[in-house]
């Protein structure tokens, strides 16, 4: 018995002592360690001019990109080129599945990647805690970065914390949505692309009731959608989008409880009740929508610009509807003449450098190169001379122009050359959509139509605050639920005021006020909210 007691005591002591030992690391607290400015201001400002004369020592740069792509045989030449020409050995981690968790683990184990390409909200979270290098003074020395940003001054405020710049925004156009119609149906019924609300309603009615595919069966709907996809065009017709904030006169109003949003829902409900809209639109998944399109059941939809050519490229529209054709329309005008597709966030991602990165000057040089005319093209298209060729400053040949996707030497590009791409040059981008293949033509059309559309913007785009992060998920859930209830008729529009009151009770006004503070600070304005 005594032996047992002693043995048990020893075992427990052993157990307890092993839990106590281990690395003495401030694991979770490293975020509050050194302030970023102290480490980066001691970095010497590089002499960019010297580099071109000496051969560069290769340095390894760890990179973390939020992307579903993967390195392949067509991205290897790019990697080799960058190693040879710039001396940068890219150690890339591409992650999309559970990427936020993975990134947070890297940060908490003190392995912040030298270059991080992440979403703006996650960037802001870590920037506030000092994970990134202060680039405010360094950026001035890099001409391409300066040029890129001077064309987009307002965007700098999105990547600054307390007036210091911690990242470089990756920009894109804000117009990304299009409405697409069945062109053959329009022709069969002698209709033209609708521009006003009345015309649109008539087209919807005709698509549903007048047998546009001529098969004698009433099996078509005017409009289709899938869950989570936006009723963007309808919001634009009335000037109110859910979860957006609109400048109405002198004040900013909350989109989710605005008159415009209510009218948009009422109009959509009208179409829905009359049977012009596929009743499964609110709940089905995107795959089911594509099936219905392929079966010829849907006459129009609002979608991302690339879905116009994806219908042919990925969803077999050409095979399943050989006599069908698609055409893009512009944003339909509402009763007051307003129109617009909802604007996407022009800052899609942010590139940040870790606060303790070595060779920050070389890294910034690399980024500067990526924003140059040639660097952008190499990162996107692949190595010059093989995947694309230039002629007098213009793109001459690009493998996507070929219907078999062949390079200059005849190799078929089966993989993906855009793997490492971090920046978009909206002035150069459209050139890759030129070409004669059907997909290219449709892609160019889709992109330019979406880009040039009238847009309904969000004044508080990309802004965040603590209140926003705490309360917004519940508020969004409530708004989404109520939207469906209003459309289905489970909730009457007479109760709109109690819906608005509940929105405010859940914290909607608090969130708006906190974002207003950020807005005024960031853009140096003096805006006020509407009366609530």
């Amino acid at each position, binding site marked *: 018995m005594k*032996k*047992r007691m002693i*043995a*048990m005591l*020893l*075992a*427990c002591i052993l*157990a307890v002592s092993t839990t106590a030992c*281990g*690395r003495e*690391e401030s*694991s*979770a607290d490293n975020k509050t360690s050194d302030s970023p400015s102290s480490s980066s201001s001691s970095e010497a400002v590089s002499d960019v001019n010297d580099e071109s004369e000496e051969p560069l020592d290769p340095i390894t740069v760890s990179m973390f990109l939020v*992307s*579903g*792509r*993967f*390195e*392949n*045989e067509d991205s290897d030449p790019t990697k080799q080129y960058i190693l040879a020409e710039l001396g940068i050995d890219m150690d890339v*981690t*591409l*992650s*999309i*599945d*559970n990427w936020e*968790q*993975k990134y*947070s*683990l890297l940060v*908490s*184990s003190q*392995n912040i990647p030298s270059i991080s390409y992440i979403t703006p909200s996650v960037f802001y979270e870590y920037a506030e805690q000092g994970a990134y290098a202060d680039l405010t003074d360094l950026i001035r020395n890099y001409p391409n970065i300066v040029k890129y940003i001077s064309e987009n001054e307002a965007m700098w405020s999105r990547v600054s914390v307390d007036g210091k710049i911690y990242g470089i925004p990756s920009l*894109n156009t804000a117009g*990304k949505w299009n409405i697409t119609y069945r062109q053959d149906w329009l022709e069969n019924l002698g209709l033209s692309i609708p521009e006003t609300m009345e015309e649109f309603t008539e087209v919807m009615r005709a698509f549903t009731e007048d047998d546009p595919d001529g098969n004698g069966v009433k099996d078509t709907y005017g409009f289709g959608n*899938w869950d*989570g*996809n936006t009723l963007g065009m309808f919001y634009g017709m009335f000037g109110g989008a859910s979860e957006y904030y609109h400048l109405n006169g002198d004040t900013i109003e909350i989109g989710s409880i605005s008159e415009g949003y209510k009218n948009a829902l009422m109009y959509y409900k009208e179409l829905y009740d009359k049977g012009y809209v596929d009743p499964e639109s609110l709940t089905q998944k*995107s*795959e089911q929508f*594509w*099936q*219905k399109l*392929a*079966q010829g059941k849907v006459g129009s939809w609002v979608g*991302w610009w*690339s*879905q116009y050519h*994806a219908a042919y490229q*990925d*969803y*077999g529209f050409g*095979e*399943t509807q050989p006599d069908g054709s698609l055409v893009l329309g512009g944003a339909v005008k509402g009763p007051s003449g307003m129109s617009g597709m909802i604007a996407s966030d022009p800052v*899609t991602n942010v590139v940040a450098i870790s606060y303790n990165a070595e060779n920050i000057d070389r890294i910034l040089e690399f980024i500067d190169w990526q924003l140059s005319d040639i660097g952008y093209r190499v990162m996107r298209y692949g190595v010059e001379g093989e995947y694309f060729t230039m002629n007098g400053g213009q793109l001459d040949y690009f493998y996507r122009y070929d219907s078999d996707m062949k390079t200059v030497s005849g190799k078929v590009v089966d993989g*993906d050359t*855009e793997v490492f791409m971090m920046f*978009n040059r909206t002035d150069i981008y459209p050139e*890759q959509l030129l070409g004669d293949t059907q997909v290219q033509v449709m*892609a160019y059309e889709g992109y330019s139509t979406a880009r040039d559309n009238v847009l309904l913007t969000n004044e508080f785009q990309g802004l965040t605050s603590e209140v926003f992060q705490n309360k917004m998920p519940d508020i969004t859930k409530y708004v989404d639920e109520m939207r469906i209830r209003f459309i289905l008729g489970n909730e009457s529009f007479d109760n709109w005021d109690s819906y608005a009151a509940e929105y405010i009770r859940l914290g909607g006004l608090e969130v708006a006020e906190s974002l207003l503070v950020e807005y005024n600070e960031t853009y140096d304005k003096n805006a006020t909210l509407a009366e609530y």
Partner: protein
Amino acid sequence: MKSTVKKSLPDKLFMAINSLLMLCIVAVMLYPFWYICVGSVSSIGHIFKGGFLVWPDGFSTTAYEHVLSNSRIPRAFFNSIFITVVGTLISMILTTIGAYVLSKPYLPGRTGMTMFVVITMLFSGGLIPFYLTVNWLGLIDTIWSLIIPSAISTYNMIVMRNFFMAVPRSLEESAQIDGARHFRTLLQIYLPLSKAVIATVTLFYAVGYWNSFFNAIIFLNKPDYQPIQVILREILLMSRTDILQAQDMSKNVPTETVKMALVVVTVAPIATIYPFLQKYFVKGVMIGSVKG
């Protein structure tokens, strides 16, 4: 019922209806897999036409060629097989030894140790400490990070321990008298008697290793050691329309047929092996319940 002949009619009827019902349920459950098999050899248009797919429209192997020629996939397959085989081996060795030791009533500190082990089954330190431990061990970005940190499943060890406890002590004592030490006793007395529980626990581990993806996502930064499940998730889940559009993807999205072929290629090995091991599985589930 008066005679035995008449008695069998309602029985036969019952059997007939029962079988029919069961066949219907089997059909309903097998259909999704059949759909995928059919879809993987059809053309895209055939799939998007919607409705019930019963037969493919032609037999095209382009999807399979695409899947198997992609260099990531055979490699990921090899990784999965390696992780499953080596992982199960390591896990089984460690679990058996641990269970054997914990089953001996004369082990000093046995209650304490068992409690210590069971606590880890109920509580976990959390993801960040786990990651830090694996990082400190230098296992990040190696294939061992998928095997070593999760080598022993406490639940399986307890199951084995209970089984070993049920082996009569007299066997062990007689082996001791004949001069066998513990290791030999384990190998030559206990293991031959425990075939059922060993098969069961092996199967539990093997399936667990084959299906694991989360550890791979967290611990692996490079795609070299990724198991097939991670690739599957990426290709099937991450290429859904709504997720893609946020990235302006202008690359070739894997088509529906390729996705289906990928599923078939991944499920086929397990689906073929399973029927042979099934009898052990069924027996094994009952292991802890009845003595003797």
